[in-house]
């Protein structure tokens, strides 16, 4: 649109009117912005009665502030058109003189000149302050009403406050857990069991988890992410352990005396490892000691240990080599024990590939519990809800007790390695519903035998275990550090050192199978409950608090 010519003198006398109108539009827009800001605040408040909104005051203030600022800026930038200026001046008593003069700007006839002169003359005596810039009564009423409505909304009890508090608590918990994650990440640098690559992988997983947790809003998502990270770590560590075992097996295979052991280690054959270790132990003790073999073994262990990175395995291997060297030089009989420790180390590596990251896994497990607790949820309920299906399982756990009787008199020393269980049979039945509860029962039997032998004496130990199997839904696994490494009790057989007597050792294996520090919740529940009940009796606990604890465990049983 072509810009209309404006008489310069007319334009000049209209400048104060223009400025006044800019001020007016700014004030008007500011008032409108304020109304819009208050309105959006009220909408936030109304919505907050139905949906929990975290930090609503900040959201209201930020959004409202933005609206207000934008409105003010728009008001400032809105330059009034010439037509508007003319109309506004005319409204203040100039009776369309300015508008007509503006339209006649290009004309030079008698009437146009007279009219322009008249308009300019009137504008000279015109006070721009007569243009009202005050906020209208309607706007004041609107603002007042909105403020009142907001105050009332603030004062009314909000049913979502509790949910917000929980969310806040959950966020704080997540924040704390992220800090812990970062600490654990730092501690990884000191973990000698891990290679640099493994450390980096773990750090990456933890960093990803921390990042996701920062962005996550709901506790379910948070728990899912933690679970995912757990799974990632377990898979990763399992693969790493396999590779480590393969490498170790390779190294052992290169030595003649440990060739077979190397093979078993490579294949991660726990039973084979134990048998091979048994053979090695036989070589270094008893009557058929072969010094050459012992030397070879000592040398082999030393060489393999030197090739390994710093780790418990390396220490165990070095200790075994040192013990054999000591046996050879001083005649002591430390080799068997050292080899036994080495065997324990090797079998544990096979059984529990993720044991190296026990702290991390424990922390992750704990994290889920804390997040769920902060969100006012029961982690076990969540597990049921997630499972939502019947899932019978073998009665695959049991508790075994090993008893051993003294060797008759020969004072040998023996021990049964672990009270072992072996699942012999199991049966289970269960039922599960779609919702968040399921129940079932199962039975499992496990029997184990343990025996210890010492030189000059025999000792045998029997372990029997009976376990309550889980014949119901797959419970959330929880970390139980007390059970790390084995599932039974150690049976010690004492005897006097000597070189006589038969020694028999039957290893019944691990009752739980591959126990990695995590066991289903229901398996420890009884134990935890019984501990709690005992402590309640012993400690000076107020009666109502006792009742509370009892009710808590009762509710868990339901």
């Amino acid at each position, binding site marked *: 649109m072509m810009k209309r010519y404006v008489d310069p003198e007319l334009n000049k006398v209209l400048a104060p009117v223009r400025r006044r109108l800019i001020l007016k539009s700014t004030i008007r827009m500011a008032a409108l912005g304020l109304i819009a800001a208050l309105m959006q605040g009220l909408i936030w408040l109304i919505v907050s009665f139905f949906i929990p909104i975290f930090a609503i005051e900040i959201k209201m203030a930020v959004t409202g502030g933005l609206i207000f600022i934008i409105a003010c800026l728009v008001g400032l930038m809105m330059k009034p058109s010439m037509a508007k200026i003319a109309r506004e001046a005319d409204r203040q008593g100039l009776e*369309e003189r300015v508008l*007509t003069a503006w*339209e006649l700007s290009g004309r030079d006839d008698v*009437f146009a000149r007279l009219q322009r002169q008249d308009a300019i003359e009137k504008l000279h005596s015109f006070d721009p302050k007569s243009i009202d810039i005050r906020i209208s009564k309607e706007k004041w009423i609107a603002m007042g009403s909105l403020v009142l409505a907001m105050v009332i909304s603030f004062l009314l009890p909000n049913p979502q406050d509790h949910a917000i508090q929980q969310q806040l608590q959950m966020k704080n918990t997540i924040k704390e857990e992220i800090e812990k994650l970062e600490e654990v990440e730092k501690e990884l640098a000191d973990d000698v069991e891990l290679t640099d690559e493994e450390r980096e992988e773990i750090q990456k997983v933890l960093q990803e988890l921390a990042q996701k947790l920062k962005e996550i809003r709901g506790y379910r998502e948070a728990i899912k992410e933690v679970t995912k990270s757990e799974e990632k770590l377990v898979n990763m560590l399992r693969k790493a352990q396999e590779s480590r075992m393969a490498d170790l097996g390779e190294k052992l295979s290169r030595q003649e005396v440990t060739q077979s052991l190397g093979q078993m280690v490579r294949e991660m054959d726990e039973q084979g490892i134990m048998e091979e270790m048994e053979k090695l132990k036989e070589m270094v003790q008893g009557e058929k000691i072969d010094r050459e073999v012992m030397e070879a073994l000592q040398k082999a262990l030393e060489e393999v240990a030197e090739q390994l990175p710093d780790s418990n395995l390396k220490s165990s291997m070095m200790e075994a080599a040192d013990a054999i060297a000591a046996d050879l030089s001083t005649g002591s009989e430390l080799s068997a024990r050292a080899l036994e420790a080495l065997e324990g180390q090797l079998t544990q590596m096979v059984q529990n590939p993720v044991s190296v990251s026990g702290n991390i896994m424990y922390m992750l497990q704990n994290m889920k519990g804390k997040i769920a607790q902060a969100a006012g949820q029961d982690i076990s309920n969540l597990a049921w809800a997630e499972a939502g299906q019947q899932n019978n399982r073998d009665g695959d756990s049991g508790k075994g007790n090993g008893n051993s009787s003294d060797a008759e008199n020969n004072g040998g020393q023996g021990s049964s390695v672990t009270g072992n269980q072996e699942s012999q049979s199991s049966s289970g039945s269960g039922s599960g519903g779609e919702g968040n509860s399921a129940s079932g029962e199962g039975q499992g039997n496990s029997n184990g035998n343990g025996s210890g032998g010492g030189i000059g004496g025999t000792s045998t130990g029997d372990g029997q275990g009976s376990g309550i199997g889980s014949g119901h839904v797959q419970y959330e696994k929880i970390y139980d550090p007390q059970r790390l490494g084995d599932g039974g009790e150690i049976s010690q057989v004492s005897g006097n050192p000597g070189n006589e007597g038969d020694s028999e050792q039957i290893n019944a294996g691990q009752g739980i199978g591959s126990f990695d520090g995590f066991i289903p919740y229901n398996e420890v529940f009884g134990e935890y409950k019984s501990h709690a009940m005992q402590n309640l009796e012993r400690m000076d606990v107020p009666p109502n608090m006792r009742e509370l604890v009892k009710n808590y465990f009762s509710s868990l049983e339901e």
Partner: protein
Amino acid sequence: MEIREEAIRTFSEKIEAMEKEIGREIIGQKEIIRQVLITILAGGNALLEGVPGLGKTRLIRTIGHVLDLKFNRIQFTPDLMPADVVGTNIVTRDEAGNSRFEFQPGPVFSNIVLADEINRATPKTQSAMLEAMQEHTVTVGGVTRKLPEPYFVLATQNPLEQEGTYPLPEAQLDRFFFKLMVNFPSLEELHEIVNLTTSGEEQKAQKVTDGAGILELRAIAREVPIARGVQDYALRLVLATHPESEEAPGVTKKYVRYGSSPRGAQAIISAARIRALMEGRYNVSFQDIRYVAYPALRHRLFLNFEGIAEGRTPDDVLQEIIEGLSE
């Protein structure tokens, strides 16, 4: 005609002088005087409605005197014939004794014609005024004769005695530039009227201008500029009187049968120009439009049955339309 700057500048003074002189003989009725003057300067005709005895005849006579214009009065009655108004050919004898037709001009041949109680004449006689009012000519016996300029018809009608009257048809009403409502004077005005007319010597109005002067003022008034927005307002106002128009407010749709013709718009703009000059302005304002809207439109706005039944008047409806119309 070339417009002199001095004539423009002194326009309002001249009008003021006319009003002052008329006011010597006519007590009160200032708005009526002003609106009659507007009608004369716009070259239109006015219809005055009011009860008898309010000084309508006196007003016209005084205006004629002040403006130095010839004045005729026609009292309309049912037996008045068109020829009585416009004139007729009569048989006369010349000096040689030959008979011939000679046109005898009727009372319309004057600068100012007062058509008193126009609604008492038959429609045939009323329509005899149409050509004179609109074209300022009279055609009798196939010969068209021009009426003297300036020419102005001021018709009156009595709103009370409606029996035996012939209400003016819409087409004829539309020929009137303004319809003016003459109200009864106030007590103070009555005092003055009585004092002026019943005691001492009456004050005589002086001549202020003449026919040529009127024509010059008329030419000036036609040149007054009007902003597009103001003209737009006036035209939207006219459109708002039409019930079928998009601009029509609820009151129009409810109470109006027919709205104003384009003559109404012409009347508003012309009258607003004159009013602006009278106010000492060289441009038309919204207020000018609003001021002239009532006399210009009230006789061009025809209420429907519902409007009449509810006692609404065109002025009521116009007021509502104006109040609802944005500038």
